[in-house]
């Protein structure tokens, strides 16, 4: 597998600088991978490969929001070793597919330049958080968003230090399922959340 450099700034807020560089998959070094395939079945396979790559790249670098104009020239979409890059049209096409799948959401649905990448689907975070609350015997109690994100008890949990926007979406899912209620406050981190037994 060929190693690629970690995206340098630009493509998102946080960067896990202490982790090893992202390992690009074998197909990242294949020339035709960067041309949107004209044959439908082939494009479907290509879309799946791009989707996998985008999600794992963002997961590795803890990128929650991708700015496509910047990302277009980053190693994610641009492989200088083989002198190929995915066109902006191609980027938008494959991100649209990710949106369809539930792994992404346009921040600006008209311009289509900024997109949230959910390297875990929102539903998955919702389930994890609820289970953690339940396992701790805290159903019926109120927790703050900050506690969920950064508390002692969340260390070691997958959602530890989860991006606030993503966390809020997950709580939104639990609210819709009647499993939680978010109380208004002055800022996201201050918000209280009460969890209910099913």
């Amino acid at each position, binding site marked *: 597998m060929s190693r690629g450099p970690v995206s340098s700034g630009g493509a998102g807020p946080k960067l896990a600088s202490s982790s090893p560089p992202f390992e690009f*998959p*074998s*197909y990242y070094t*294949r*020339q*035709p*991978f*960067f*041309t949107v*395939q*004209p*044959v439908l*079945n*082939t494009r*479907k*396979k*290509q879309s799946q*490969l791009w989707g*996998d790559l985008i999600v794992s790249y963002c997961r590795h670098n803890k990128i929650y929001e991708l700015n496509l104009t910047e990302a277009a020239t980053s190693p994610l979409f641009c492989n200088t070793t083989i*002198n*190929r*890059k995915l066109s902006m049209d191609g980027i938008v096409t494959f991100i649209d597919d990710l949106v369809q799948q539930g792994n992404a959401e346009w921040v600006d649905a008209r311009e289509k330049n900024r997109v949230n990448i959910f390297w875990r689907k929102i539903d998955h975070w919702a389930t994890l958080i609820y289970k953690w609350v339940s396992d701790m015997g805290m159903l019926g109690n109120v927790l703050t968003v900050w506690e969920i994100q950064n508390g002692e008890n969340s260390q070691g949990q997958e959602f530890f230090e989860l991006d606030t926007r993503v966390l809020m979406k997950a709580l939104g899912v639990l609210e819709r399922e009647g499993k939680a209620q978010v109380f208004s406050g002055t800022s996201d981190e201050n918000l209280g959340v009460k969890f209910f037994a099913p």
Partner: protein
Amino acid sequence: MKLMNEQLVVFKQNLEEFAQKYKKKIRKSPEFRQQFNEMCTKVGVDPLASNKGFWAELLGVGDFYYELAVQIVEVCMCTRATNGGIIELGELRGHLLRKRGPKAQAINNDDIDRSIRKLHILGSGFSLIVAGSTKLVKSVPCELSVDHEAVFRIAMEKGFVSQDLLFTQLAWDKERTDSVMNLLLQEGIAWLDTQHESGQPAYWFPSIIHGGFGDEIGE
């Protein structure tokens, strides 16, 4: 004629004794097995003929090839989405080795070749295409012509094909190139590359790219 028949009978008996004596080695060593298979072919004995009968029982050879055939079918099905149902023999062998794991009986290209010929006889749509110094395993029913095979030969050598390359090597005009390549594109056997350094569209073949093209087979 009678003498020849007698000799053949004696030869077959010798072969059976040989097989009995070297049962283990036949199972373990692909090279030895290959030689043994060739000997059998010369005498008109087919160890793969059926799962029952002397040979299969004696050697478990029938099972070995049957199992291998099933694995070949699995690999071809899993890689079909990327290579359109054409995979180079060495590439197939790599997948098989990973799939079978380090503790399985060793296999070589001859073993794979035989299994595929068996599959072909069974009418499963498998066939072998000679491409330069290697072979391609085709597991889809689409009809490929000698033109397509010519393209594979060039692709094996250069890694890709383009209009210029096909013109230089085969004197094909654009119409012929387009017609031949369109089928390969449609079948998913070739992928298009519009950023090739030559400025022309280039066509690449996941089937002959070693190291894979994003195939997860739970190896």
